């Protein structure tokens, strides 16, 4: 039980934000109306994705410094779960955009940038899948992973701010500043980020453990032959 406490913290935070996110008052704004609540669920997907990608890059750098297969495995799993959160972010964003921007794919720089960033990460998995040699795969994918992270930051955070964007918090659009100052929304939003991040870490740990079990099974089989 002792080593599970952080999972329980994550679950409790999510239960709190799912109840609080639906009940606590949100600013009254036309067009957005009650969909302002989507902020509690849509944005934490992206924050979690970036945090998980950050861990992924950390393990890639660790691998390049010291090529232990454990680092490569962790880097891969963090990127995998991060991409899953990114896809959820895109889908929730499309649903939200449909009712506030009028169309699911607006061609907004933020949307396009996020989609390109996800494609860059999908190429990471293609690269991994196409290499058989373990050391070569580890080294090349670690280098590519660092590139992918470096490409994602401008695609999601810089380019949309340099041009016009409908997305709140970007080019020429003060957007969520009204909410950002709203301490009631912060009380749900930040716990949501922490809660989803902990759940993301949990999923990563499950994936890492299952891969390690697989590796041990392979080792056992090799030993018998």
């Amino acid at each position, binding site marked *: 039980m002792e080593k599970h406490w952080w*999972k329980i913290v994550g679950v409790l935070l999510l239960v709190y934000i799912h109840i609080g996110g*639906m009940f606590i008052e949100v600013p*009254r704004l036309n067009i957005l109306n009650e969909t302002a609540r989507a902020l509690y669920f849509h944005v934490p997907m992206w924050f979690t994705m970036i945090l998980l990608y950050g861990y992924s890059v950390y393990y890639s750098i660790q691998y390049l410094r010291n090529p232990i297969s454990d680092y490569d495995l962790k880097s891969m799993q963090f990127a995998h779960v991060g991409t899953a959160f990114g896809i959820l972010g895109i889908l929730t964003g499309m649903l939200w955009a449909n009712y506030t921007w009028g169309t699911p794919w607006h061609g907004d720089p933020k949307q396009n940038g996020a989609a390109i960033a996800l494609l860059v990460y999908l190429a990471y998995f293609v690269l991994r899948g196409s290499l058989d040699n373990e050391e070569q795969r580890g080294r090349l994918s670690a280098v590519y992973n660092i590139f992918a992270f470096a490409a994602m930051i401008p695609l999601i955070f810089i380019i949309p701010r340099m041009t016009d964007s409908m997305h709140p918090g970007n080019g020429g659009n003060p957007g969520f500043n009204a909410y950002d100052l709203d301490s009631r929304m912060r009380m749900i939003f930040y716990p949501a980020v922490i809660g989803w991040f902990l759940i993301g870490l*949990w999923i990563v740990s499950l994936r890492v453990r299952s891969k390690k*079990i697989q590796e*041990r*099974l392979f080792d056992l089989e090799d030993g018998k032959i």
Partner: protein
Amino acid sequence: MGKFRKILFTLIAFLIANIGFAQDAEMADAMRSNGKIYVVVGIILIILLGLILYLFSMDRKLSKLEKELDKLG
């Protein structure tokens, strides 16, 4: 008296809310007063907790496998 005070308080609260935001946007007030928002909260909580239980069961299964592997050496 209690009821009257409640109504008065609600009216004042509404007034303040309207002055504060100066926008009369359509919100799901009726849905909440009818109590139906609780249904939605219930539904999302069932999904959330269902998925969490799923994660816990996977966690347990992996622990079991790890223990069995440890026995094998």
